[in-house]
């Protein structure tokens, strides 16, 4: 029996078929990779949004006093909602420490601090207290750490019930909004 190989035509057709199939697989692969990356970045936004809201909520609920004044609504004339919010920490009632959540660029920081007078720097005093000369106390920052990233904005508004709105952005944008009542803060509703 005579051994017969492929003809050139057969080879070309087979090659063309192979390239076509391989190209198709490559296209699917590339699409999947892009989708994976995009979804990963989107998941990152959601993750950071949840972290920001959950961490602030937990501590705001226990707050005993607000330091930062905030507008009643996000549309209050001439008073835009601030992107930083300071309050008296209620988790440790003895130590008089203050917490401040603030936005620096796209990063959300949680600052832990206390106030004291230069004459007695070890004694924590309330921020509203004045010394005998009428001077306010000085602030000492204990720590200031990043807790979330990819933030485009954070807004605080409301009264005793504070609405927190977090806008997150990288390629896409997500907005999370909720309201938290600071039960220990005296005010309307008591």
């Amino acid at each position, binding site marked *: 029996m005579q051994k017969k190989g492929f003809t050139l035509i057969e080879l070309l057709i087979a090659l063309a*078929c192979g390239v076509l*199939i391989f190209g*198709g*697989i490559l296209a*699917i692969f590339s*699409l*999947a990779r892009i*989708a994976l990356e995009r*979804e990963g970045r*989107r*998941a990152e936004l*959601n993750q950071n949004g*949840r972290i920001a*809201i959950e961490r602030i909520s937990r501590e705001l609920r226990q707050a005993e006093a607000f330091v930062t004044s905030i507008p009643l609504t996000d549309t209050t004339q001439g008073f835009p909602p601030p992107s930083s919010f300071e309050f008296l920490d209620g988790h440790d009632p003895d130590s008089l420490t203050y917490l401040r959540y603030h936005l620096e660029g796209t990063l959300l920081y949680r600052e832990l601090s206390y106030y004291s007078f230069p004459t007695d720097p070890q004694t924590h005093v309330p921020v509203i207290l004045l010394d005998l000369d009428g001077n306010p106390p000085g602030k000492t920052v204990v720590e200031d750490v990043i807790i979330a990233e990819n933030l485009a904005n954070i807004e605080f508004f409301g009264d*005793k*019930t504070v*609405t927190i709105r977090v806008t997150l952005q990288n390629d896409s944008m*997500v*907005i*999370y*909004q*909720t*309201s*938290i*009542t600071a*039960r220990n803060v005296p005010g309307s*509703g008591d």
Partner: protein
Amino acid sequence: MSNVKCQWSNVNAGFTLIELIVSVALLVFLAMGVGQIFPRAIGVNRVAEKSTRATYFAQAELETILATEYVSITADTTYPRHTISPGYDRQTVVNYIDPVTLAVSSSDQGLKRITTTVYYQSISGERTVVLSVIIANH
């Protein structure tokens, strides 16, 4: 036996064009099936994201109502469904409930239940998040 022998003698024949086309078609069909997973997965991710947002909207409503005293929360009331953010609607119902059965009661027996429902749109139609809280008169 002759049949078997016949098959063996044919061993160099390779695939026919039909067989090849069928197999390629099958491959394409399977690849399309696999390809369907991606948009579906992305859709599920979006639903999870919307569900989280909806839960926060529901939480906001409960926090706002709970900030007031028991007596000033009006029972037998429905705050009708309204849009709170594009794509998100909210409805809240306050009822007296029976302390034993926890069923809706027509009179004040010292317990109220606040149920808030947030509606949002997903690829498979409208979905809801329902949060409910019971408050006592003390």
